[in-house]
């Protein structure tokens, strides 16, 4: 997320003197567009080839995170924004992961009670 890590800096197409525009080469957009196509095709193939278990899940999650990262970093220009904005927007969603962990325990418990109390015999 270091601003200097990309090979070019946004040109200061300042309008009205209040902000900088986000002007980036079209080639970069086309490259990301192509990559998103490839990654989507790859995650579709994971289903088509009927991979199961850990392999399926690690592949799906890796492709998902790569796609999300490309969209946010390049298409939404987060890679060139100041860290103050990046952290304010990108860190809070990680709280959802805590919620996920809590709800995993909760649904395990619900499943257990359903299995023991809703006995069909």
């Amino acid at each position, binding site marked *: 997320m270091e601003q200097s890590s990309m090979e070019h800096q946004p040109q200061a197409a300042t309008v009205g003197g209040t902000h900088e525009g986000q002007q980036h080469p079209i080639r970069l957009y086309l490259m990301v567009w192509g990559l998103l196509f490839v990654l989507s095709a790859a995650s579709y193939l994971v289903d088509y080839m009927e991979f199961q278990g850990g392999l399926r899940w690690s592949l799906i999650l890796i492709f998902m995170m790569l796609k999300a990262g490309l969209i946010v970093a390049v*298409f939404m220009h987060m890679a060139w924004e100041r860290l103050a904005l990046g952290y304010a927007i990108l860190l809070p969603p990680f709280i959802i992961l805590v919620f996920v962990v809590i709800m995993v325990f909760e649904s395990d418990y619900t499943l257990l009670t359903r299995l023991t109390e809703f006995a069909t015999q």
Partner: protein
Amino acid sequence: MADVTLKKTPPEHPEGLAGFVADWSSDQRTFKQVSWGKAMMWILLLSDTFIFGIFLVAYMVARSSTPETWPNASEVFALHIGGADMPLILIAIMTFVLISSSGTMAMAVNSAYRRARGPTALLMLVTALLGAGFVGMQAFEWSKLISEGVRPWGNPWGAEQFGASFFMITGFHGTHVTIGVIFLLLVAHRVWRGDFDLDRRSWLSRGNGDYESVEIMGLYWHFVDLVWVFIFAFFYLW
């Protein structure tokens, strides 16, 4: 009163982590070099992230707390094409259409900052058309499932919560796409008419070639694509 000499040089903004600390502790506006419009769009998208996050968590809870078998998405969303069942084929096409619309949107933002009026409006129009195509395919998918007997309270293949999760998540996403299409057409129309090149303020533009609204519109549109990435992974591929 003491004379105050105003410095004419713009303040220095350090980069990286030092910049992060400086921006947040500066006792001024935090988001420097970002207009309010853009900062507010990002904050809207953050709250939307939580909404979709909670839908997906609710879906996870429904799915993992039921002893019933969950309908196999690969089979439920298969289409019969040319004598063979193609698993998830419609969803795959929808994914490619939405990614393409994100691509054209990025190009529209690029044209906007070059102040190329025609290409910007045209690319936004293409984006809107792809978005409308996506919504159309979603409508087709909904009607197909409804005709097969999927309801929010039941379906022919297994756990009853399947329908509720499906309609809720894809419905909210479809609504977002629809709103995006409407706004894309609105902004594209304004760009085409030359509203952004006037030498005065107008709706969405501070005048004199301020095309930032196109980028802000783009942020929303890319977010819709971003949400689909997660729905695709968790709802259709799980």
